[in-house]
């Protein structure tokens, strides 16, 4: 049936906007579906703007700028071009036709071209069905702050706080930032000063790395307390503190939409085999999206799932996988969006069941924790055994089912991801796997296992000068071990570290730049599967 598509158009001030003006002054007609937003330069158009436009129901997004070479700001338009390419890829992954996003060069004199583009785009959209991604806005049931907090207090032992300050002096952030102290946050809560806390940044500063939890004598689970309270804390502040304009969260929210049909398996190498039904299900996580979003870091994160599948095949397993796998919801959960988290969880579990799998393996510690702990706690029908790929591998090593080819003469240091280590207590399997690779010499950082240091950012929050210090400090520690390869079992560690090292550094780059590798990739290499 015919419908009137809504188009959001971003017009650069110097060329396209003037072009649109000209169209008007010259009385050239074009469809009324477009809503124009003036920006100084097309380069100003953040992918997040586009994603948000689609999330909130735009059927098409038009980005226009000066012709290459004419840019008032030298090359802003070229940047825009590159960005929009990426966004198209993301839309593609989400199963949305990339044509819904259109980039055009329109100069001051091209009033007509503007009209044509709009007319044509409108026509093109009319032929498609309305934007299926529109995420439903969730009106959150009003909650009694005091109840939520007192429940959380009991659940996470906050009332037992001894005021000893072990948390603050363990916290990578409060060591650097005097304004922040888990202890004082707790103390304020216990004295009934919750409003002071909720309106401040405390809750959004926590890395949820669990170091304090690990060391607290009174077993206060501060990060979980924070998680439970974040839904009450100021959203404005969160958005301020959130990196990447919240794209990742937006993507997750979009995935809650039942209508979407993702196209996320493109990375699957030829020759590898998967099966619709299998006892083992491989849960990939959002790597395909990250691979696009962080293309500039060329970490090529897709090597991770590729390695996993290859290794699985090698040991004779054709894992089940979900073509329409949804985000596990980790970041939503840890930023207080319970409703959308639960939607994603339910959809995923429904799909898990279809595969008849009993075990789920994942190479992402966040997915691992979320499935194994949070799904299990929140869904009554969750009856799967969840393994991190490192655990799976160490089983194989035990059974002697892994054949490594030749020697890998590398000095390797391993980073314990917070969620794999302190959250879930998985310390030894990755080490066993690395240790079993012929030729590999393994060294440890002084702070390892339960004392390991976080990669500096979680749930894309509070990526700031403090987290950068934490990251640089940690990388220097790794480098100081004399290792030539830094292995981690979490894609996020790589992203955040790569991010910090790709910026201007306060130290000699030599001291921090290291070759990084995901555990699964390392193993695949050692098995000569890449």
């Amino acid at each position, binding site marked *: 049936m015919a419908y009137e598509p809504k188009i959001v158009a971003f017009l650069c001030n110097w060329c396209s906007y003037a072009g649109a003006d000209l169209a008007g002054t010259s009385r050239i007609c074009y469809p009324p579906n477009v809503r124009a937003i003036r920006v100084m330069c097309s380069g100003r158009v953040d992918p997040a703007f586009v994603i948000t436009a689609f999330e909130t129901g735009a059927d098409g997004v038009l980005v226009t700028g000066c012709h290459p070479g004419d840019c008032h700001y030298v090359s802003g338009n070229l940047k825009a071009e590159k960005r929009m390419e990426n966004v198209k890829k993301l839309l593609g992954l989400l199963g949305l036709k990339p044509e819904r996003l259109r980039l055009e060069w329109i100069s001051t004199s091209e009033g007509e071209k503007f009209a044509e583009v709009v007319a044509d785009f409108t026509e093109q959209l009319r032929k498609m069905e309305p934007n299926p991604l529109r995420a439903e806005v969730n009106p959150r049931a009003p909650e009694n702050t005091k109840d939520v907090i007192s429940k959380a207090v009991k659940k996470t032992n906050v009332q037992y706080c001894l005021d000893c300050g072990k948390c603050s002096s363990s916290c990578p952030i409060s060591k650097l930032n005097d304004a922040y102290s888990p*202890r004082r946050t707790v103390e*304020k809560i216990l004295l009934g000063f919750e409003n002071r806390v909720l309106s401040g940044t405390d809750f959004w500063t926590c890395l949820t790395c669990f170091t304090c939890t690990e060391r607290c004598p009174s077993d206060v689970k501060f990060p979980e307390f924070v998680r439970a309270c974040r839904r009450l804390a100021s959203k404005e502040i969160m958005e301020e503190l959130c990196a990447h304009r919240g794209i990742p969260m937006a993507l997750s929210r979009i995935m809650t939409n039942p209508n979407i049909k993702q196209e996320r398996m493109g990375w699957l190498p030829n020759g590898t085999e998967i099966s619709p039904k299998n006892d083992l299900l491989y849960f990939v996580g959002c790597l395909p999206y990250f691979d696009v979003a962080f293309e500039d870091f060329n970490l090529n994160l897709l090597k991770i799932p590729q390695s996993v599948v290859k290794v699985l095949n090698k040991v004779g397993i054709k894992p089940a996988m979900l073509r329409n796998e949804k985000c596990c919801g980790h970041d939503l959960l840890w930023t207080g969006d319970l409703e959308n988290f639960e939607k994603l969880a339910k959809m995923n579990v429904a799909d898990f069941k279809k595969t008849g799998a009993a075990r789920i393996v994942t190479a992402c510690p966040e997915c691992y924790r979320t499935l194994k702990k949070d799904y299990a706690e929140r869904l009554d029908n969750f009856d799967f055994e969840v393994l991190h790929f490192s655990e799976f591998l160490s089983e194989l090593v035990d059974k002697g089912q892994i054949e490594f080819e030749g020697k890998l003469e590398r000095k390797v240091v391993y980073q314990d991801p917070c969620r794999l280590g302190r959250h879930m207590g998985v310390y030894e399997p990755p080490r066993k796997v690395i240790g079993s690779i012929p030729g590999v010499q393994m060294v440890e950082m002084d702070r390892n296992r339960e004392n390991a240091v976080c990669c500096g950012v979680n749930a894309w929050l509070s990526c700031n000068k403090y987290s950068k210090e934490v990251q640089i400090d940690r990388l220097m520690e790794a480098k100081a071990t004399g290792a030539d390869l830094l292995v981690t079992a979490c894609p996020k560690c790589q992203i955040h570290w790569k991010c910090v090292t790709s910026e201007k550094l306060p130290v000699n780059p030599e001291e921090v730049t290291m070759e990084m590798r995901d555990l699964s990739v390392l193993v695949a290499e050692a098995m000569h599967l890449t």
Partner: protein
Amino acid sequence: MEHAEEEVLRIGVFICHCGINIGGVVNVPEVVKYAMTLPNVVYAEDNLYTCSSDGLSKIKEGIGKYNLNRVIVASCTPRTHEPLFRATCEEAGVNKYLFEMANIREHCSWAHMHEPDKATEKAKDIVRMAVAKVRLLKPQDEPEIEVTPSALVIGGGISGMTSALCLADQEFKVYLVEKEPELGGMLRHLYKLFPTMLNASEGLSKIVEGVKQNKNIEVWPSTVVKQVKGFIGNFDVSVQRENRETANFQVGTIIVATGADIFEPVGMYGYKKYDNVITQFKLEQLLKDNQLKKPERVVMIQCTGAREEKGRTYCSRICCMEALKNAMLVRELYPETDVYILFRDLQTYGREYEEWRRMAQDKGVKFVKYNLEKLPEVIAGHDGKLTIDVYHALLGEQVQIESDLVVLSTPLVQREDAKELSQTLKVPLGPDGFFFEAHVKLRPIDFATDGIYVCGTAHSPKDTAESVSQALGVASRASIPMAVKRLRTEAITAMVDESLCSGCGTCVKICPYGAIEKDEKGVARVTAVVCKGCGICGASCPEKAISMSHFTDEQVVAQALAALGRTVA
């Protein structure tokens, strides 16, 4: 004494090789030869191990064969082996005080193993010194004294009663003296007892009954101790009843269990100025009598008049638990009532009490730490409410709490009449005013004066369980002399030569054990049982009228001169 002069000295010297420990360094045979040359030495021999069973029989043989009346063993340190050899001598009929040891191992062969010749010379000197002393030694006997198998227990609280019962069960007669008309002491005023939350009255009634039933216990209510004479085993006690009637007992031991008072914080935090400022003790009574009207917010202030910079510097130990207990009771009674505890350091020690803190935290009791430097202030607010202005040390900010009931946790303090009692018994009070034990670590419930013991809160603030432990403890300490019935008095004691004593009283002042007093003639008299034989009095007596048996001036000087090679023959 005289006969010792007459008798002919026959000294035997037994010199030990101690394997190679002595023999390997000191030329033992040479020392033996030398010993024979010393005055009155009639026999000397060497043994591989004098302390071995066959070495010991050698000594006995020697004594018999050469009818020795003085014995010297030159071997190791007397601190471990003297009793063994003394016993051997006694078995062979030589008074054990006629034995002397020469330490040629620890003080010679071991210390000088690289100078064998000098070591041998030193060994000879050491033997010579021993000879010099043994020649002057006198036989001593250790007279025994009877112990009256009965005890005086001062104080009828939980401590006193517990001791009394324990002693009575061991068939000792007990005189239990209580100032008040009723038994029970502090527990009579308490509501619930931590940590078991038992009703105090419940626990108490059983024990009071037990005491009243017990045939070995004589209870003296409304009675105070007036005078105490004598010493361990034989105390003469006179007590006085309210009605002025007096009585006397003969007891072997005395137990002080007089308890403590609760400090009245007049003028602190508006106490006695605002009537909604009360003590923790008062709150407990209100709870007990179910008289507490529902408050909106209760604020408890710990360490009121305790842990001060000057004055009552001590921590009263029980107040924190008292506060936690009452805070929880209040929360149970009135769940909507906020309870704040303003504390400095929470004394939740031991097995239970940390758990207690957590229980209180579970029950939503709020804790605010304050500092001695910035004490909280209680200010009158509107409609009879009070505002507590407190610097929250752990947030670093001033906090105002509006409250309609302020509860002050105050320390236990020594009773007024304790000073008098301490003088009557001649036992000391410590700087904190509580009774002062003989040694904080190893004699915590004895007094330096034998036969007198202390337990319960008279000793220091403590809870019921701890008082009971101490009460049982003193029962053991006190039963020791009463069970053995006779006491051997130390032979090494001070002896006063009355003809020389001028009664200046220096010794009386100086004796750490109060073993010396002036008799009716005004001259010093030593109570042998009480004397520990340190000899300080002797060394200090202005008239040199005091001498120490077994360590007489002559003996010591003789030993010293012998060391210088000047044998006093």
